[in-house]
């Protein structure tokens, strides 16, 4: 359906007809989602449902933003559509080869999105880093895949419970998979490409990176690595991987303090949140994994909102430097309201979905190690403080010399309000329902 509409849209439709066609197929997908959600006709596993929904939501907002902001959606749209399809494929498949191919094709689309929509000459450097890091991870992933196939004769992860596994090879494959996925998450020290890519990319590309692409690494680990590890391997793996992740968290938290570029700031806080989610995942407790899924989903909504907000600021002021803003509450009151709420979400303020995700993660981590959970709390407090500081600096800091700027218009308002709405809706009203229907047992098929 998606593919055919993409082809139709690009090659055959013109003018109004193309808009109608596009509207028709987005509405159809929305109806399918509503049907699946309320009638529980779950053709896919329930964990992935959240990410399907997140993908749909993110791309809908991007199309909406493109339509009003870029004024050239007809040319850019095929890239976004194909990217959307490949992400759906990643979420849907349980075959490692198919996942690998869908996972890697995102690189190609991102290369074009950054190179076409990026405006500065430094985008060349960003694309170089993107390709080199991704290919580096790809080698590990490919090796893991080939080894997996040689040992077990299948690439279908759902057959895994039927197979006999050897501990040593299991650990080798898990390690290769970990490095392969760690590039996309990204984990320290493989995170440098993300900072450059975020800074050089257009708003929509940044939103996509933060909201969906970072999640693919986590989803890969959740789908293909966690069910694969036996109890002994889990113990062996946890002993050093958590230490590694904690080191990354400390490093990124310190880097966060001296960031002046708003995009870099959000990118680094994204890395911190993803690292934290990974620790939660590798606690391998029921609460930990539930917390991981909720944190990922919440981060998708929050990061999308933050990057949209920064894009809006950049369009108006032509700058992303933190020091060049202040008193936005007077100039852009509606915008400041939304942006402040996103920063609160980023700081995991109670009542938001992020808070729910992090608190469940903490429950999971403290089951394994109470001292580690306390230590993580101290590290994360830095992110919370920095988020508040940025919020206060932007909203109430020194007044700018310019006096008049238009506040957010209809499309921007729609996007920001919707993201705030969904975050608060899930955080306040659906938290109980979400935690009940995510179960650790689903992971083991």
């Amino acid at each position, binding site marked *: 359906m998606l593919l055919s509409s993409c082809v139709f849209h690009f090659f055959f439709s013109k003018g109004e007809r193309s808009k109608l066609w596009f509207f028709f197929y987005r509405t159809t997908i929305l109806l399918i989602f509503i049907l699946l959600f309320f009638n529980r006709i779950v053709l896919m596993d329930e964990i992935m449902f959240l990410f399907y929904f997140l993908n749909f939501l993110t791309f809908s907002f991007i199309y909406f933003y493109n339509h009003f902001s870029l004024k*050239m959606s007809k*040319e*850019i749209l095929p890239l976004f559509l194909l990217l959307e399809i490949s992400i759906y494929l990643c979420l849907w498949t349980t075959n490692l*080869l*198919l996942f*690998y*191919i869908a996972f*890697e*094709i995102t*690189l*190609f689309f991102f*290369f*074009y999105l950054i*190179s*076409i929509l990026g405006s500065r*000459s430094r*985008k*060349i450097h960003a694309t*170089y880093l993107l*390709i*080199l890091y991704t*290919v580096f991870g*790809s*080698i590990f992933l*490919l*090796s893991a895949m*080939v*080894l997996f196939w*040689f040992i077990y*004769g299948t*690439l279908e992860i759902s057959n895994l419970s039927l197979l006999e596994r050897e501990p040593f090879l299991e650990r080798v494959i898990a390690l290769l998979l970990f490095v392969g996925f760690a590039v996309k998450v990204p984990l320290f020290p493989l995170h440098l490409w993300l900072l450059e890519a975020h800074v050089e990319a257009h708003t929509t590309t940044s939103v996509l990176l933060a909201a969906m692409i970072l999640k693919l690494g986590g989803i890969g680990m959740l789908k293909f690595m966690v069910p694969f590890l036996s109890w002994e391997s889990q113990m062996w793996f946890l002993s050093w991987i958590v230490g590694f992740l904690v080191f990354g968290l400390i490093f990124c938290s310190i880097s966060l303090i001296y960031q002046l570029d708003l995009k870099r700031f959000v990118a680094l806080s994204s890395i911190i949140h993803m690292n934290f989610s990974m620790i939660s995942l590798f606690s391998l407790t029921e609460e930990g994994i539930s917390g991981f899924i909720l944190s990922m989903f919440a981060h998708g909504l929050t990061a999308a909102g933050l990057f949209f907000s920064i894009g809006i600021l950049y369009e108006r002021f032509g700058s992303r430097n933190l020091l060049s803003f202040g008193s936005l509450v007077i100039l852009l009151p509606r915008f400041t309201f939304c942006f402040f709420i996103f920063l609160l979400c980023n700081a995991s303020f109670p009542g938001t979905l992020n808070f729910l995700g992090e608190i469940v993660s903490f429950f999971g981590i403290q089951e394994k190690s109470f001292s580690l959970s306390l230590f993580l709390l101290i590290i994360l407090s830095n992110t919370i403080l920095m988020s508040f500081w940025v919020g206060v600096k932007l909203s109430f800091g020194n007044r700018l010399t310019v006096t008049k700027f238009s506040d957010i218009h209809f499309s921007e308002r729609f996007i920001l309000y919707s993201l705030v709405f969904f975050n608060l809706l899930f955080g306040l009203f659906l938290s109980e329902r979400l935690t009940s229907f995510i179960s650790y047992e689903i992971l083991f098929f």
Partner: protein
Amino acid sequence: MKSYFFEIESLIALWILLSSFYMIQREKREKNYKVVKNFPEWIQSTTKLIFCALLFLSFFYVETIEDFYRYLVSFLFLISINWFLEERSYEYWTNILLLFLTVLLFFTLENLFLIFLLLEIQTFIIYFLVIKKGSREATRGAIQFFFQNVVVTFFFLIGLYFCYLNFESFSINRVDDLFLFLLIFFKLGLFPFHLWILNLLKVTNKLLAFLLGIYLKFVYFFFIFKFCFYPSPLFLIMGLTSLIFGSIGGLFQMNWILIFVYSMIVNVGNILMIYSFGSFMSLIFSIYVQLFYLILSTFFLLALRELKEEVKDSSNEYTMNPWSGITYSILFFSFMGIPPFVGFFIKIPLIILLFSKQAFWLLFVFFIANLFSLFLYLRGTKYLIFGGYQKSYWCDLKFVGGREKRERAMILTSINGFQILFICFMPMVLVCIVELIL
């Protein structure tokens, strides 16, 4: 019935005779025996028609690998005269037909001495086609090629002599003499025998680049399959060195055709490494990789028809025409070996084979060599996409006017179309093949 369809050599010979006869008649008609420079277009179109008919009929009778190769070279010949034939002189035409005839005869012969003679005829034809260009560089390149070929042929003859001493015959099933291999390595253009192909391709046209870089390679691959298909460390070493030096050597090139040659060296090294395992699985994989190599390299040459000679001069490609800029960069992404493009499926069989033999060090070297070649193609992509980044907007998606532009659009679309086509079903084919073998 089958034999009639497959004995197209006689038909080709007949066709050469007829076209030569026509040429003589026409020359006679022209008073004073004036030399007729160009052949009429109907000869070319009739040849295409005959080939299409033959290919269509013989498709149903492909049973052995020999048939497959014969079918493949016929198909490639059709491609060469359809896409790459630019110079329409009689000498060119007759020589290309003769070359095709020698290639077809190659598949039927089992006598090494006769094969040697055919290879020499091919050398002479190539020499003639290059030297006909008339420039000083072309003449120098052709003479260098000829002399280097003479040296290697000398070794081949020594090898033949030893063979005859041992078996008292030239009709042998298995070649394992180092002297005999040298000629094949030379013809394949493997490192360190690659200099002649660099010199020749720099000065010749795209037709000869196609013939030397792609078309004739299949003949030598068939030779290896027929006479030397067994586990061989020599092939492994030659393949690996070609892979490494091809990847590193390519980094210093700023000319598209030289980049093509180095990518060819890397890919041929890759195929030779697959051959070196000598198992049934490696045979299937090698054919599979050869087909992908054919697709990829042909598209590269097609792209070279459009691009300027130097990499730096192509920096405006994306600004001038975003569609072609993106198409070429897809091609380079494919060469980088990024899934799901064709290039990925060239690399994966060797990885599978190396894993199966637990040759992890070789695998490591293979990955490093690939990283080097990745830089090469990344640089090409950089020049294509970012060369004129100040003006890059998605505004010029229409091809403006003229037959030439339409043809260009068709070529670009076909490059994209094939790549996207192979995205869809090739992973499945790979999995099916491997599962069938196991």
